């Protein structure tokens, strides 16, 4: 037989558990309402130093073209870092509201590795490929703009390869080939065929 005093203690504890649980849910909702939706912008680390010109090949779905835009930014001396920063800036443009070539939320790249001055490996994140719209034209514009923007920063570049989360992938979103090396000159010539 449980004493009456013990019964009161148990009931009080159970009520306290429920009350704390409800308070926890309340705090969680409050925190979510303050922070808003997850940030989908590609974030670029700050770089100090003199400002230089950064050339971006911006894709436009409506025009089916690549538009060359120059922005001013402080750039690091390391070639791989320069390439990464340029692609970060490009992807950030695509994630802006009213982007001419929207990418899925969370699209970004992890890194740009230079095997030698002529060969670069671009490691995209999974969201870039998984949320990319599917179709020859939209995938072609994304890949061409990445390759040509990288080439603009690294003039000695002759070939580029893409990985997704560090792994090879057959296609970007079902169409454009990501399985091999891109010949930069061939991409440059092919981009001339865009409108």
């Amino acid at each position, binding site marked *: 037989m449980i004493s009456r005093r013990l019964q009161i203690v148990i009931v009080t504890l159970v009520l306290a558990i429920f009350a704390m649980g409800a308070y926890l849910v309340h705090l969680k909702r409050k925190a979510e309402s303050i922070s808003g939706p997850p940030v989908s912008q590609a974030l670029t680390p700050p770089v100090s130093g003199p400002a230089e010109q950064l050339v971006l090949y911006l894709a436009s*779905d409506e025009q*089916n073209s690549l538009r060359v835009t120059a922005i001013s930014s402080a750039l690091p001396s390391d070639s791989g870092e320069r390439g990464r920063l340029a692609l970060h800036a490009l992807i950030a443009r695509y994630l802006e509201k009213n982007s001419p070539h929207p990418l899925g939320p969370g699209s970004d790249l992890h890194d740009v590795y230079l095997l030698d001055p002529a060969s670069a490996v671009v490691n995209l994140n999974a969201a870039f490929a998984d949320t990319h*719209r*599917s*179709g*020859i*034209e*939209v995938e*072609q514009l994304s*890949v061409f703009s990445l390759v040509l923007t990288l080439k603009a920063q690294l003039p000695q570049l002759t070939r580029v390869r893409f990985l997704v989360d560090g792994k090879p992938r*057959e*296609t970007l*979103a*079902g*169409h*454009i*080939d990501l*399985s*091999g090396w*891109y*010949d930069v*000159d*061939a*991409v440059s*010539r*092919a981009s001339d*065929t*865009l*409108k």
Partner: protein
Amino acid sequence: MLKVQAIAVRFTALLLLLLAASFAAEPRRINVYAPQALYQVDILFRDGVDYVGLTDLLEPLGRLESGVDGKKLKLTFNGAEAEFQDGKRQCRVRSNKLDLPSNFLLVDGRGYVPATSVAQLLPRLADQAANFHQASRRLFVGSSEIHYSTDLRHSPSRLVFSFTAPVNPSTVIEKNRVRLLFRREPLVGPVPETVSYNDVFVQSATFAESPAGAELTVNLLQPATVSTGDGGRTVTITATPPPQAPVAAPQNAPAAVNPSSGGQQPHPAPRAHPFVILDAAHGGSETGSMLSPSLAEKNVNLAFARRLQKELEARGVYVVLTRVADNLLTWDQRAVSANTSHSSLYVAIHTSSTGQGVRFYTSVLPATPPSTQPSAQSAPSSRTFMPWDQAQSPFLAQSSAAASALAAQCTSAGLTSRTSAAPLRPLNSVTIPAVAVEIAPTDGNAEELAAPEYQQRVATALATGIAALRDKLEVAH
């Protein structure tokens, strides 16, 4: 001793498991030869009976609509209604009752009938005769069968096979034996299957069929050469006086020309080959893009390919398709199909909900030295080894010309069109002129892609453009 026995039992069990796995890994299929298409249907083995899916079987043959109502499957095929019930033998076709040899199966909303029943079912449902060769798993629908006759002639000694339609067999010449392999042709044999000859040149000719196709084996007493003629309707095996070493030659390799073969061509006439191979992109588990919440790219691509096939055939263009049902093909399988089809043009078909009109794409490849570019009248040598992912290089100029011509045809038909180059598989690995077409709606409404009127409009423009390319590409190829 007991331990040794236990190890032996385990080893045997493992071997049996591996054996069973190897059998399980080998998919069993029925080859269907129909006037509309040549295709394969997977076999489902249940309760000791081979079953085939009704959708897989009927879809390439005509317009099919089906729906499941509880345990019943109701379908309409080219206007004829049929009803099947899961677990029952009896079914209803055009208000007539029919008993299947085994129970009808409904698995995951798909209906399956016993394979042996298709010869009964198709004539009632499709108004087309059907002949099922169970041992070789070959199904002949309508008037698709090709028959042949043999004629032994002398001075010089030769055996002439005459076929009721053009054929394109692979030829293997061995010592005292010639084998003609018919992998795609619906060739059926005579009874008896072996014909003996009391001759100094030919001993016998035997017809055999298997799931891999049909084969004619001619046993000889002298070396021989093989030539085809009459637009692929005859194959002649002619005795050659000097003895030769055994040679195995694929059909597309140049055969020895026999000056006494009555002017016959050593190669099949160009018209015996398909002119164009259409590749409906995606399929099976790979849906492509979702054009709308209910519209998968793979299905619209196939619908376009079929419509284009009909339009081309109406213009007298011989067409083959890489897929005629909802099945998955790898990029390499598509390239191999194109490269072994003896076609002159490869066209991949894609659809997209973004953009406008019709876009044509050719391969993106590093610059090719001018010496490897073919001239307009000479095809590049098929004997030049190329990397698999650059095999398109020698054909790029022809591909670009074909894309431009097709785009011009679409523009003249009032469709927005343009050409571009895109790194799109399997274009780089195709060894004939290759173009990918991406069809988008005219007004941004993806549902237009499924509309028969729009599909017909695009198919008509493409078919006109492809037919106009025949003279240029067939000469070059």
